């Protein structure tokens, strides 16, 4: 036994003499950490790194089967899902791992921001972190493209349409992005190279630098109200803090990182097991146009923001906003590199995080049910509610038919079914007079097309007759104020006396 041990030590010593890694590794593991920083709040960075490793491993495994060709990518995913043992599970882990990674990176960033950990001397660590966030989002987007289904195809089309709006060089940029004149084989190859070689390579390099800087500069100390960061004194204060009562990173802080890593891996596997892989949706065949493309979860908010922008602001917003936002994130530690770290002394920072979080949440929520998109089959799929037809005259029922057949329901809901792009029509007669309806239907306006060319006078008459019956819970019909005024001027004042209105109030 002792001989075995002796020879094992001998082999170790042989390698160590040549590698010389023992000393730097031990020192890195034992580097003193401020005592309160060995906290559960400090586990997100290592959590993101562990998820990145998981993505590398599962990604390589998927690449064993996946075919990066526009002709075969979709069917290779079908093969992966249904024919390869546990292929669906590996795909699901990779997909859920991606969602978890984006979420953890965002949480890590919010925590670092709120704890003021980006301040001196960790400005560059933050700046590299901003790039890591962008690379992570880039991986999420390109990964969604590699799924190469209908959503990916039309999503790329949206991307190309956005790129085409770049002034002067839009056209060449589109061809550069697509790798050719259309979305096809060379487009997928380009995104494959991005997803598998270029962005992961940069991620690896930046993660290595990011972690190196954490070791080199030490873990940021727990913020205390009133403890001001100043370039003149910080280094001395931090050295005092860590040398006096600092704890070794391993094991005092590392056990929490390890527990969190295990928990997050289990959570990814649980989601993969219960919810399965994402897509692929329909085949990437552009001749199948019965589709309503939608981006993945983490890009829904962009979809929503674009939908709510006034059209004339879209192009400037698309190209100016990202520059401003990314620029602000990069410049943050250079502008605010000193001062208070504690969140209770930084109300603007707190407010920003809250507003951004609420805004992202609201836009993501809106993006899940897309009230700005017409529901293309509502006109044939959502029947007119029976309550809207009971006790109606033949003309009014004919109008209900016109409402269905002219695709009005694609944008207008009735009885809770139908599109949300235009206002619901359940109580339209309480808001619009007959004249206003006729004008709106025939001439359009707002977001509504003009139906003047698509409706005969008889159809218009029937449609408006039906709309006039839609008064919700028996609300009183809308009245043209000018009519009331002109009638009241024409009629003798006696009919306007209080006695005239008493029967209705009693």
């Amino acid at each position, binding site marked *: 036994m002792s001989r075995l041990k002796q020879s094992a030590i001998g082999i170790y010593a042989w390698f160590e003499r040549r590698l010389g890694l023992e000393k730097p590794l031990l020192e890195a593991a034992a580097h003193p950490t401020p005592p309160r920083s060995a906290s559960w709040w400090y586990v997100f960075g290592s959590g993101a790194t562990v998820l990145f490793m998981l993505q590398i491993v599962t990604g390589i495994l998927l690449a064993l089967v996946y075919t990066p060709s526009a002709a075969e990518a979709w069917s290779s995913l079908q093969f992966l899902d249904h024919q390869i043992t546990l292929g669906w599970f590996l795909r699901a882990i990779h997909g859920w791992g991606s969602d978890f990674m984006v979420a953890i990176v965002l949480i890590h960033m919010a925590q670092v921001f709120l704890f003021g950990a980006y301040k001196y001397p960790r400005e560059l660590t933050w700046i590299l972190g901003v790039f890591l966030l962008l690379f992570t989002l880039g991986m999420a987007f390109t990964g969604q493209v590699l799924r190469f289904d209908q959503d990916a195809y039309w999503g790329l089309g949206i991307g190309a349409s956005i790129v085409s709006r770049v002034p002067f060089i839009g056209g060449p940029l589109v061809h550069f992005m697509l790798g050719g004149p259309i979305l096809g084989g060379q487009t997928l190859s380009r995104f494959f190279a991005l997803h598998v070689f270029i962005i992961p390579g940069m991620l690896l390099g930046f993660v290595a630098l990011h972690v190196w800087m954490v070791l080199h500069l030490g873990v940021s100390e727990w913020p205390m109200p009133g403890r001001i960061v100043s370039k003149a004194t910080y*280094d*001395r204060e931090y050295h005092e803090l860590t040398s006096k009562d600092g704890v070794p990173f391993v094991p005092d802080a590392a056990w929490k990182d390890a527990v969190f890593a295990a928990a997050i891996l289990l959570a990814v596997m649980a989601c993969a097991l219960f919810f399965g892989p994402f897509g692929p949706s329909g085949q990437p065949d552009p001749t199948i146009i019965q589709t309503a493309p939608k981006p993945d979860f983490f890009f829904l908010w962009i979809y929503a923001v674009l939908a709510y922008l006034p059209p004339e602001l879209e192009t400037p917003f698309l190209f100016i906003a990202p520059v401003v936002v990314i620029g602000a994130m990069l410049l943050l530690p250079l502008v605010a590199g000193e001062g208070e770290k504690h969140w209770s002394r930084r109300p603007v920072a707190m407010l920003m995080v809250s507003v951004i979080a609420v805004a992202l949440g609201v836009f993501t929520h809106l993006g899940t049910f897309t009230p700005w*998109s017409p529901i293309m089959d509502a006109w044939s799929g959502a029947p007119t509610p029976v309550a809207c037809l009971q006790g109606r005259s033949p003309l009014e029922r004919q109008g209900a038919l016109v409402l269905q057949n002219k695709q009005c329901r694609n944008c207008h809901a009735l009885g809770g079914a139908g599109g949300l792009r235009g206002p619901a029509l359940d109580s339209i007669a309480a808001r619009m007079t007959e004249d206003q309806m006729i004008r709106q239907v025939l001439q359009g306006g707002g977001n509504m097309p003009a139906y003047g060319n698509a409706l005969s006078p008889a159809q218009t008459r029937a449609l408006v007759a039906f709309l006039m019956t839609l008064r919700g819970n028996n609300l009183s019909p809308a009245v043209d104020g000018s009519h009331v005024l002109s009638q009241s001027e024409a009629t003798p004042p006696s009919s306007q006396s209080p006695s005239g209105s008493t029967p209705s109030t009693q």
Partner: protein
Amino acid sequence: MTEPLNPTGQPQLHILEPQIPSSSTTASDQRAQRSSRRAFLFKLSLLLNGAVGVVLAVPILGYLFGPAFRRDATYKNWVSLGPIANFPEGQTRLADFRNPYTTDADGATSNIPCWVRHIAGHQFQVFAINCAHLGCPVRWFPQSNLFMCPCHGGVYYADGSRASGPPERGLFEYQYTVVNNDLLIFAGQMPTLSNHACVEKPLIQIEPALPAHADTQPFAKTDPRADA
């Protein structure tokens, strides 16, 4: 880096130690070293590698940006949408064609759909499937004579002009011609705002009366500035 900055004590200093003697040489020694033959050769080698790098960059950049600098016209060609009998007069129908510039790796993605509106005789309008807003596939509804986009609710009239919603122009149109009763269009690249200049059109277009000799061949109705 000063010592207090280093949280781990001073491990890095030990690693750096072998290089320290070089910094202890005198200033004149350093000057002599800088102007030595080896230092000159080292600088020369850097210059040589810089030059090789520039030469190497030419094929790399040319390969990478090749698709960007290729002229649009080289991608495009006349493709057939089939006999005009497939497109009844007064109707708008979905057609598709194999993109003239394609490879095997494209698979189904190079089957490009388009909307064909047969006005009368040999007079057509061939619309791209892509919404002029962000490229989603528009759908034709013959009942209401409208094209609707499922993404952000762009709507177009039967003649492709903008009706409502976010698009800033009407649908993109292909150049077309009729040869031996076959409908041909000039296609080959994805239509976007960059290759189809935005033409100001009034919101509601009143169709001009059809000319008596509408079947003049080849008849191309398209943006004057398109495909520039």
